[in-house]
């Protein structure tokens, strides 16, 4: 039996190794100028440059701060709202159509409104992140609450638990697997919103800014390097935050079959 940790590392190595090989083959095939499809060493060199002069960390810091704030706000609003939707029929009937209408609209379309309300600057881009992250949280939390096993609720009732206790000890933990899925989705959408939103943040710092600036000047190595950083940060948060959270809560409680088991 191969140890799960080792298996995970091998899996990641295989995944990234194959992708890297495919890219190298494509880049070196010469079908496009090397400035447009830089080989991995050019991308690595560009990143190394940004690490050496410290700018990468500043950019990452600004972007993470914007995502973090937007995500936190979205969680504060979205999770309770999703739970209420699952419990109170009238709230569900009111919120669900709104979510269905607003969710598919690209944040770029709201930019004029956001500029109007928040001016140019960080507030507007955090607002965009909030808007993007809100809907996955609401939808997944709502589904989670509705999916809680009725049996457990009835069992708790028969043991004499009041509705407050049922909520705290049965519904909340029961919905948690879905809430975590919602967090994963919200995080991904938040990234996408922040990269677009940093255009109206009127700032010199942030991974989104780096991507647009490098695209402007066809510095594809920097652009791809930044995208790789975003991807890696996504992977990092997945392993260090979401998977860890799952391990400590829903997996331990047996609600979810673990990735680490």
């Amino acid at each position, binding site marked *: 039996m191969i140890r799960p940790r080792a298996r995970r590392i091998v899996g990641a190595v295989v995944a990234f190794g194959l992708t890297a090989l495919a890219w190298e083959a494509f880049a070196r095939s010469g079908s*496009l100028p090397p*400035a*447009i499809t830089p080989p991995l060493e050019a991308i690595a060199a560009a990143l190394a440059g940004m690490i050496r002069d410290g700018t990468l960390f500043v950019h990452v810091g600004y972007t993470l701060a914007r995502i973090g704030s937007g995500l936190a706000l979205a969680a504060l609003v979205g999770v309770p709202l999703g739970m209420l939707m699952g419990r109170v029929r009238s709230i569900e009937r009111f919120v669900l159509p709104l979510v269905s209408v607003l969710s598919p609209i690209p944040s770029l379309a709201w*930019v*004029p409104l956001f500029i*109007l309300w928040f001016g*140019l600057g960080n507030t507007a881009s955090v607002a965009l992140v909030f808007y993007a992250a809100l809907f996955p949280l609401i939808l997944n939390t709502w589904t989670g609450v509705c999916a809680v096993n009725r049996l457990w609720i009835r069992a708790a009732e028969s043991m004499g638990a009041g509705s407050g206790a049922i909520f705290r000890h049965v519904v909340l933990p029961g919905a948690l697997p879905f809430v975590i899925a919602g967090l994963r989705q919200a995080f991904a959408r938040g990234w996408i919103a922040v990269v677009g939103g940093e255009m109206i943040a*009127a700032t010199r710092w942030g991974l989104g800014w780096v991507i647009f600036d490098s695209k402007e*000047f*066809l510095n594809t190595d920097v652009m791809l390097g930044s995208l790789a950083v975003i991807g890696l940060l996504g992977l990092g948060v997945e392993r260090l935050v979401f998977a860890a959270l799952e391990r400590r809560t829903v997996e331990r409680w047996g609600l979810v079959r673990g990735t680490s088991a």
Partner: protein
Amino acid sequence: MRRGVALAAILLALTITALAHAQAKPLHIRIAVHTQTVGAPDVIAIRQGYFKQEGLDVEWRRFALGKEGRDAMIAGALDINSTAPTPFLIGLDKGIPFTAIAVNSYFCGTNHVVVRKESDINTPAQLKGKKIGLPKGTITEYVLLSRMLPAHGLKAGDYEVASIPDAKDRMPSLIAKAIDAATLADPFVAAGENEGLIRSIGDFCKYDPMPFMLTATQKIVKDNPDAVVAYLRGWLRAVKLLKDKPVEAATVYADDQKSLGRDTPVAVLDKALRRMRWEPEITSEMQRYLADQAKDLVAGSVEGRIKAVPDIPKALNTELLRKASAGR
């Protein structure tokens, strides 16, 4: 006997038609149509059928930025695109195989500094202490900051700059009072003035002619120069219409706008189009202009944008335009 003759006649007619078709097989080209006024000749040529009349089959797509067209060109999806000198030079520096085949236009007259209608700003000198929205890394930014504002006595630090790369966000930002002034191009300026929202306090012609380059991939120039010449012929006819019969040209352009759901009056578009200067020839002055631009980019007003001045004469093709203008 009569049936035999009839049959032979039909066969002959069919053969001749087939042969004629084979010889007149249409040339094919893929172009980018710009949504700003620099794309007007393309729009007009397509609508009036000028390209078809030259035997050219045109596959066209709209692009809001010359840069995006250039990127599609790089991906091998387009043959012809118009773009400003800066993206052109950056592309050359990075080894993109494209050539300038003409000057699309000089758009300094359609590039403005605008303020809200009710604003009390009337000249650039009054921008002291104000916030200006502009697209970073463009020729507009460069000319505004290093020529226009200094000419009115303003130096860096006398004003605040807000980088708003997307033209679509600049007008809302201005109306929303997030900025006090912005740079904006026609036809949006003409439309905004017509709606009573904004006012132009000046254009860029005193400081820079602002050319827009018409570029083609080296591939199409090599493989199918006849198609490029046919395109230029159709394009030149549209330019002629714009110069000789501007109102008629504006009407065609307005029809195109209608198909996009916009109801802009012909007079507004006519005003905007008249601000353009159409002079397709790549003059030696133009070459010098490009060389100077390239030098500035190397020196890098911001962080040395290109590595070295590219070989500009090699990237220019005046032959095709000459061929297209001849025989008219």
